[in-house]
């Protein structure tokens, strides 16, 4: 292959561009990236802020729940829900309260609404993880729910409960979301 003058100019420009590219890439290495530029940092800050805010907002509910005052916890939760309807944390707390009260189908429904809004509640390492309690709920409720549905196929409530428990089982099993 023969190179003419135009080729030589292009090759020179290419070499200059490549060197400039390397130089600028080297400048942007993570060591020289300030913390605030990092999206991970921003995300972590937002996550911490959310944890703090939720703890503060729902503290009357969690206190009542920890003291075993389930009816009061439900009332307090309703009060918060008026201001923040549709918040995943509210559904998860409702699920937990109902679970403690022994209302297992209601608990499953609450957990599902929460998890569909935020998968964090089923993650092992999340600060608000309810994975263990959900695993126990599924283990306890699934066999009777299957039997009940087998005995009465036409009952839509039984069908929905079984479907809810299967959804929770699938989320516990992992896989891509």
């Amino acid at each position, binding site marked *: 292959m023969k190179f003419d003058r135009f080729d030589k100019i292009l090759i020179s420009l290419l070499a200059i561009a490549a060197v400039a590219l390397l130089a600028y*890439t080297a400048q942007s290495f993570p060591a020289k990236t300030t913390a605030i530029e990092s*999206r991970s940092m921003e*995300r972590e800050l937002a996550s911490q802020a959310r944890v703090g805010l939720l703890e503060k907002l729902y503290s009357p509910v969690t206190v009542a729940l920890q003291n075993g005052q389930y009816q009061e916890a439900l009332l307090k939760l309703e009060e918060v829900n008026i201001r923040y309807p549709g918040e995943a944390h509210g559904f998860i707390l409702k699920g937990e309260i109902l679970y403690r009260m022994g209302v297992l189908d209601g608990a499953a429904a609450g957990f599902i609404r929460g998890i569909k809004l935020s998968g964090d509640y089923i993650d092992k390492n999340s600060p608000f993880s309810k994975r263990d309690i959900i695993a126990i709920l*599924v283990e306890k409720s699934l066999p009777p729910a299957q039997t009940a549905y087998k005995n009465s196929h036409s009952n839509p409530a039984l069908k929905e409960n079984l479907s809810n428990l299967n959804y929770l089982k*699938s989320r516990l099993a992992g*896989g*891509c*979301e």
Partner: protein
Amino acid sequence: MRLDRHMMTIILSGLLLGFFGVMLSVWGNPENSGICVSCFIENSAGALGLHNNPRLQYLRPELVGFVLGAFASALLRREFRSRGGSAPLFRFASGFFLIVGCAVFIGCPIKLFLRFTAGDLTSLAGVVGLIVGVWCGLKGLASGVELGRLSPSAAPRGSGLLAPAVFLMFLLFIFISPSFLIASEKGSSAQHAPLLISLAVGLLLGFIAQGSRFCITGSVRDILLMGRRAPLLWGGTAFLATALLVNFISGRFNPGFAGQPGSHQEYLWSFLGMVLVGWLSVLIGGCPFRQLVKSGEGDSDAALVVAGMFLGGALVQGWNLAATSAGVPIGGKIAIIAGFVLVFSGSILLRERE
């Protein structure tokens, strides 16, 4: 069956894909998703900032490995040729709808069989769908639906280097982590095998698959066309048998319909999603995995499919088209129907008539 060198390479491809497909899950990738091209593309699109789902953002090293492994193999075998120029926009749109079909099923054709060999019986609807889709695609080809021939003259010289160059850049991103690159700290993207293992497996599979031309939809196509004489039948069988065996040994075989990882029970939409993937794959000459491998060997048409797949990976998350364990969202159902509109209209318009 003639056990020549090519046949051995095909069988080796199947064995490695089945083995690593399960083992990558054992080493940290999500359950039944050791290898899933569509999931990897959704994750990588998110990592590059193309969608905003904080649970699905991770530049998957396997994906980079597939393309660069194929590139290395094509160079070594002197099979690297820049070629392209046949129905580029149709291929780009097909790439988009390949990911839509996969996202509605939850998995690419490789993951379809990984799910099946782990006992996920909900994937049966997808298996049937894929076979029906490939059969429909073959009927189309037999009736003259033709995207045009790949031509080295239609592609500017060296244009085939662009796809490997882009993936080389992604490889750099993996190691230097520029500030715009995002990595999930929760959700399924936070689950991954160690970086160097993922990359090495990707490179190995890309390298082997380039030589063998192994492809899931290609295997189904050849079996439908040639039956037991199809070499890819043996590669496909090796893949299934190995994946099943490794799933058994690693304690990951849990047969059942309900509560399977990353699955839903909307069988009709699983079926239709895979019909779309099978049909499109036959028209454009390979499943998502094969498109990545072809883009590494200089096929700029396949590179356009890959670009379409990245757009699909971004939009199935951004527009909430992807199915979850809760089922298929209405947007996903509409997108599948739109995909069929593309297939039907494309088949009418691209058909060669006497």
